[in-house]
């Protein structure tokens, strides 16, 4: 096992980022014009990066699999974005946001990265407001804030229940501006299927044109992946249908280490699963926990009659309700972090007190808030969310409590990156949810938007220059270079094998089966025994997939089933790595809960043995990956048991 060099700058924590920026190498404007950068993915991180790099003068090529860069899944983020502006004068500061994020992540994130994130959070709000993002305002015309899980200050900026949409449209506008100016060439309906490396450096990609099916080659002096998270490995998640791990996984197989894959976030407030046909799960923003109170009946008997439809929530008297988050975590109450709220819901349901027919659901009740604030205020505060719930469930949350249950939502793991956001492959960068860097073992609400935009707007424009300054003599490499041919042939061979299999099972059959394995053995609670079993199941599934999958149509046409098959093939391999990682981590922390390691239901971390990032190196599909450890050093904070009591 080798030590990884995270390239954290010298100096006191608060000065590191400034020190870095002041000493990073620069590329002069004439040279920037000669340098080409590929950006894969156009969500918050990708669009922000592509636009900002083009503004600086680099030649950018941007890729997305959707029909327009505006569709990236960042758009679905509802609740808000954190920033340490302290506009509320409630004691917020960069250090507090840093500390809350580190603590929220159960002390498994890198100090220097998180501090930089907290610092840049303030610039993000300035930038987005300048772009015309219509954030919520107070009557005086100043920006409004609300509180979010895992913090005791109000630092969350929001645009109704559509914050992600508005931030993404801001970044998309900036990107389109650069496209219009000719500084970015946009390739939509293109999916990256290979990274091209030449002499150890990332030099381009192979992308599949999803309309024609053709494989196309693109050169870049550097390649940036901003391709989002891998929650769809569970089949059912709150991710968009197309969200996938393929780009990150191909990079992993070309030498980029994959870090902490087992850290997955199960979001506590989603609409419960109702049937086998279901294609995705819908999130109800965490902001609802500001005013909603989570509860189940105190007794199993009451829960049973609710499940059977003989009673409803209003029939249960106040003293017979268990507001379990308020009871267990009095100082944070309903606003405790996501992993904790999710596990508490699971515990209540495992105890037989779930309130939906499947037994897997709890109430989120707005009756008190409506009494306190009135219906109109509650409706205004949550914009689209109530009608959205009502449309899906046919129940009005203003009259009867919402029914919710945890669902897979976000993945903290991702490609390992150093302080400059470079992966273990030279010239290959990874931003946003696709990297592992800032959230440790659990992400706090309203922090994903912050990280995506910090990476794209304010980090990569500085750090990439430090690398590209030494590439100014490299002429664009023609795409008939053998490395491009080899990568294309690899992608072609894989595609032909997939389409030629003509087996008996559909792509979704395999995806659903994988999802079941992952949810059962690598979901909210994990055991060594279960994980060992799961690994065997996934290996068998992989073999069966490659010999028995049935993909209709051909390779030279618009073929969404084929696109899906390629993604599922990668999810199966990733699933195995997640299980390996979960098995290796003999502790419970954040989104990773090993049943063997707990104190009466609370996660039991093992700092002596596991205060490290697990960065996995790919060997071959059939052999074990190699573990590299990055030890997490805490110089500014004290490791402690994470308590929200």
């Amino acid at each position, binding site marked *: 096992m080798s030590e990884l060099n995270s390239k954290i700058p010298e100096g006191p924590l608060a000065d590191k980022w400034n020190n870095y920026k002041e000493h990073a190498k620069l590329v002069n404007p004439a040279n920037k014009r000669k340098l080409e950068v590929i950006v894969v993915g156009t969500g918050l991180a990708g669009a*922000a990066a592509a*636009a900002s790099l083009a*503004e600086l003068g680099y030649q950018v090529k941007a890729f997305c699999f*959707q*029909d*327009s860069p*505006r*569709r*990236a*899944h960042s*758009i*679905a983020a509802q609740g808000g974005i954190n920033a340490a502006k302290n*506009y509320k004068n409630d004691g917020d500061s960069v250090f507090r946001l840093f500390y809350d994020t580190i603590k929220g992540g159960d002390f498994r994130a890198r100090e220097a990265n998180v501090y930089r994130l907290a610092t840049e959070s303030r*610039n993000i709000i*300035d*930038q987005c*407001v*300048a772009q*015309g993002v*219509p954030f919520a*305002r*107070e*009557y*005086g015309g*100043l*920006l409004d804030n609300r509180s979010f899980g895992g913090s005791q200050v109000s630092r969350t900026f929001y*645009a109704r229940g*559509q914050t992600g*949409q*508005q931030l993404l*449209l801001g970044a998309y*506008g*900036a990107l*389109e*501006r650069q*496209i*219009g100016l000719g500084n970015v060439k946009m390739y*939509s309906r293109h999916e990256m299927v290979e990274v091209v490396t030449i002499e150890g450096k990332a030099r381009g990609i192979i992308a599949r044109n999803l309309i024609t099916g053709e494989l196309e080659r693109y050169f870049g002096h550097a390649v940036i992946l901003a391709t989002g998270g891998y929650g769809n490995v569970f089949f059912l998640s709150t991710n*968009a*249908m197309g969200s996938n791990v393929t780009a990150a996984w191909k990079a992993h197989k070309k030498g980029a280490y994959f870090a902490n894959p087992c850290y997955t976030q199960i979001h506590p407030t989603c609409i419960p699963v*109702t*049937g086998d*046909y*279901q*294609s*995705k799960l*819908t*999130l109800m923003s965490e902001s609802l926990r500001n005013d909603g109170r989570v509860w189940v009946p105190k007794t199993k008997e009451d829960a049973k009659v609710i499940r059977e439809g003989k009673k409803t929530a209003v029939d249960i008297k106040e003293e017979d309700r268990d507001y379990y988050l308020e009871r267990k975590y009095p100082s944070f109450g309903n606003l405790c972090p996501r992993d904790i709220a999710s596990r508490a819901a699971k515990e209540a349901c495992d105890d037989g007190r779930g309130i939906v027919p499947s037994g897997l659901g709890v109430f989120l009740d707005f009756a008190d808030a409506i009494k306190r604030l009135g219906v109109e205020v509650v409706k205004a505060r949550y914009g689209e969310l109530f009608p*959205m719930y009502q*449309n*899906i469930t046919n129940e009005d949350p203003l009259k009867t409590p919402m029914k919710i249950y945890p669902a897979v939502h976000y993945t903290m793991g991702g490609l390992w990156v150093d302080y400059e956001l470079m992966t273990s492959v030279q010239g290959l960068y990874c931003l946003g949810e696709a990297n592992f860097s800032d959230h440790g073992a659990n992400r706090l609400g309203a922090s994903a938007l912050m990280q995506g935009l910090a990476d794209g707007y*304010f980090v990569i424009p500085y750090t990439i220059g430090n690398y590209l300054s030494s590439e100014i003599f490299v002429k664009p490499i023609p795409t008939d270079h053998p490395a491009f041919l080899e990568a294309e042939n690899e992608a072609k061979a894989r595609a032909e094998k997939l389409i030629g299999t003509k087996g008996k099972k*559909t792509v*979704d059959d395999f995806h659903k089966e994988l999802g079941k394995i992952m949810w059962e053995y690598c979901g909210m609670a994990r055991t060594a025994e279960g994980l060992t079993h799961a690994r065997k199941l996934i290996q068998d599934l992989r073999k069966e997939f490659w010999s028995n999958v049935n993909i*209709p*149509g051909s390779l030279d*046409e*618009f073929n*969404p*089933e084929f696109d899906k098959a390629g993604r599922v093939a990668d999810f199966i391999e990733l699933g195995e790595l997640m299980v390996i990682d979960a098995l290796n981590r003999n502790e419970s922390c954040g989104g990773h809960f090993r049943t063997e390691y707990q104190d009466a239901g609370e996660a039991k971390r093992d700092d002596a043995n596991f205060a490290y990032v697990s960065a996995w190196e790919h060997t071959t599909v059939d052999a074990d990956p190699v573990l590299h450890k990055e030890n997490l050093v805490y110089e500014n904070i004290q490791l402690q048991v994470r308590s929200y009591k």
Partner: protein
Amino acid sequence: MKFNLKVWRQKNAKAQGKLVDYTIDNINADMSFLEMVDVLNDNLTRKGEDPIAFDHDCREGICGMCSMYISGRAHGPHHAATTCQLYMRSFKDGDTIYVEPFRAGAFPIIKDLVTDRSAFDRIIAKGGFVSVNTGQAQDANNLPVDKADAEKAMDAAACIGCGACVAACPNSAAMLFVSAKISQLALLPQGGPERNNRAINMVNQMDEEGFGNCTNIGACEAECPKEIKLTNIARMNREYLVASLINE
């Protein structure tokens, strides 16, 4: 529930398309429309037939990718909802349902129900932004915005760019889409200096893409999943008129 479907099938942009009949049974009323199509596609795939290509992604009504014209209405019969937010409980058992792509000259068909809506991106590229480079911003609270204006701007900014307005309009006009962006930015102080050029450039690009003109029919507003208001078109016309006079 059981349904008779008449679905537009078209192999590619150049091929001739036609409506093809399918029947589907055992559909649960709580299924979404797209989940019903998933089931149909699963049946087709197992029979060795080509599944129906359709655009979809977030399946929660915000990405704007899904785009079906269902029994004569963009996104189907449910008010203020995208196709992915349409549930089978909106139909009666035994209904015949027509499923077509969003039709407009500026939205060429790629395959079956999938169209090319990149014209929208090209319009945005002409001015649907505030020209502020990363790092050039002042402190966010240095620029107070009247709450009522901010709310109106947000109403307009809620547009998801799905193109239902174009599909619903007999003239295939994109005015609701274009005016939503122009309105959002016209209502805010940010980007004021480029306000006139924005209106002119975006409207010119809209015409160049081949979208039609507005004749105040209002189908766009009626079918918009985000309830974008016609008043935005009035505001855009005002912006365009003022800009034309000033630029002369």
